[in-house]
């Protein structure tokens, strides 16, 4: 079997369509882009932040696998380095055992392309990709998950992962309709020892796009984070473009000086496998110096509350942001959002003594807005 990995070009689009057809016929739910140009972060000569697509092609004709590789500059102990993110690896091996080796080929190709590479999210511990990267010697750890219930009625009526038996559904409906849920949430917040920051000197502005003030924030913040994707204004304009109206871009100032920002989502779900018909608030991405992190979380929570969300969720790896979330009344839950770092990247982080909670990673560092 001669299977070669090549960069995806227009000549292979029909072969990808046929590949997707075979996956679907085999019962798989995954599929790959039928355009060779990435819809998110297409390569441009002037950009170091871009997505690249690769295909595993048999006999130069039939597509047997594919993956996406995101290239992005990171600040690591003050030095800027290009780091890779592997996304969407799919092998025909999931429907035809004869191509089981293609999955291994894709992972090894990604590692050889970009030895400093990571995966984020991955779908949880039971997913094949997680087993694969573990087999390749990657370090895998969950990115802590935080949540805060804002509207108990909507939460209790829709949280499918908790409403998983008739008795539980009955109990949760009783709590929702009796007001017991509201009382319970109030009690949790009353007895939790969280401490909200003084918001009187803070001002919040919703901006259409990140501009020069975001560069000032980045310059001040970068030295405080040992490992963090470059979050200057130009990068943020690419990640959260002005044309994408789903993102709420929030600038937080104190005494007239910008101290940080947050990117938020308020999404209405219908029949979501976890959130049912909930209105979900997500703190996608954040930045501030550590002493101001609680102020950013406080403002984000207030803004999402005004957006009438039922629940706010976020994943944050850095100890600073975890502490800020706890201070603002967020609780932790089990996380299936995983960070996997290649051997070379793990070694680099270890050399700089950058353990998990010193890395600033969140859902903004993943494989695209579709998975937020």
């Amino acid at each position, binding site marked *: 079997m001669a299977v070669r990995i090549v960069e995806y070009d227009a000549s292979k689009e029909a072969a990808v369509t046929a590949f997707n057809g075979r996956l679907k016929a085999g019962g798989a739910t995954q599929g790959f882009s039928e355009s060779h140009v990435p819809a998110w972060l297409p390569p441009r000569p002037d950009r170091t932040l871009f997505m690249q697509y690769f295909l595993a092609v048999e006999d130069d004709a039939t597509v047997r696998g594919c993956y996406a590789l995101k290239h992005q500059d990171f600040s690591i102990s003050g030095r800027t380095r290009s780091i890779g993110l592997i996304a969407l690896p799919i092998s025909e091996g999931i429907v035809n055992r004869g191509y089981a*080796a293609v999955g291994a080929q894709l992972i090894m190709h990604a590692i050889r392309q970009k030895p400093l590479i990571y995966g984020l999210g991955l779908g949880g511990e039971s997913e094949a990709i997680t087993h694969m990267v573990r087999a390749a010697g990657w370090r895998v750890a969950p990115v802590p998950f935080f949540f805060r219930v804002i509207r108990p009625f909507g939460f209790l009526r829709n949280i499918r992962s908790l409403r998983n038996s008739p008795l539980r559904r009955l109990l949760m409906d009783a709590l929702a309709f009796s007001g017991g849920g509201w009382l319970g949430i109030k009690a949790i917040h009353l007895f939790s020892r969280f401490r909200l920051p003084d918001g009187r000197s803070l001002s919040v502005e919703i901006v259409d796009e990140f501009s020069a003030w975001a560069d000032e924030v980045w310059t001040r913040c970068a030295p405080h984070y040992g490992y963090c994707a470059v979050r200057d204004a130009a990068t943020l304009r690419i990640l959260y473009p002005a044309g994408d109206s789903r993102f709420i871009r929030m600038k937080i100032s104190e005494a007239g000086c910008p101290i940080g920002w947050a990117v938020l989502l308020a999404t209405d779900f219908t029949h979501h496998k976890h959130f049912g018909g909930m209105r979900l608030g997500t703190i996608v991405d954040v930045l501030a110096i550590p002493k101001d992190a609680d102020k950013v979380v406080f403002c984000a929570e207030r803004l999402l509350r005004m957006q009438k969300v039922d629940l706010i969720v976020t994943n944050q790896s850095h100890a600073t942001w975890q502490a800020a979330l706890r201070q603002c009344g967020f609780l932790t839950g089990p996380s299936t959002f995983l960070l996997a770092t290649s051997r070379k990247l793990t070694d680099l982080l270890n050399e700089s003594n950058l353990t998990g909670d010193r890395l600033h990673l969140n859902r903004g560092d993943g494989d695209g807005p579709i998975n937020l």
Partner: protein
Amino acid sequence: MQERIGKIFSGLFGVSREACTDALSPKDIEAWNSVYHLTLVMSLEEEFGVQFSPDEIVELDSVGAIKAKLAQHGVAR
């Protein structure tokens, strides 16, 4: 080479040294899936001090093919 490959297959798949013939392939071992293939490749690279190219990885589809590929990398039979 046979002895060292047999040791890897024994450890990974529980295959006896005698059963580790050149014809042995994923068709004969249910557990030889994508994850185990990657583990096998990493084990071979570590044991023999070689590095396979991504395109070679998919060609390691039997014990005989593994031996041939290792020989191409200068490992003595």
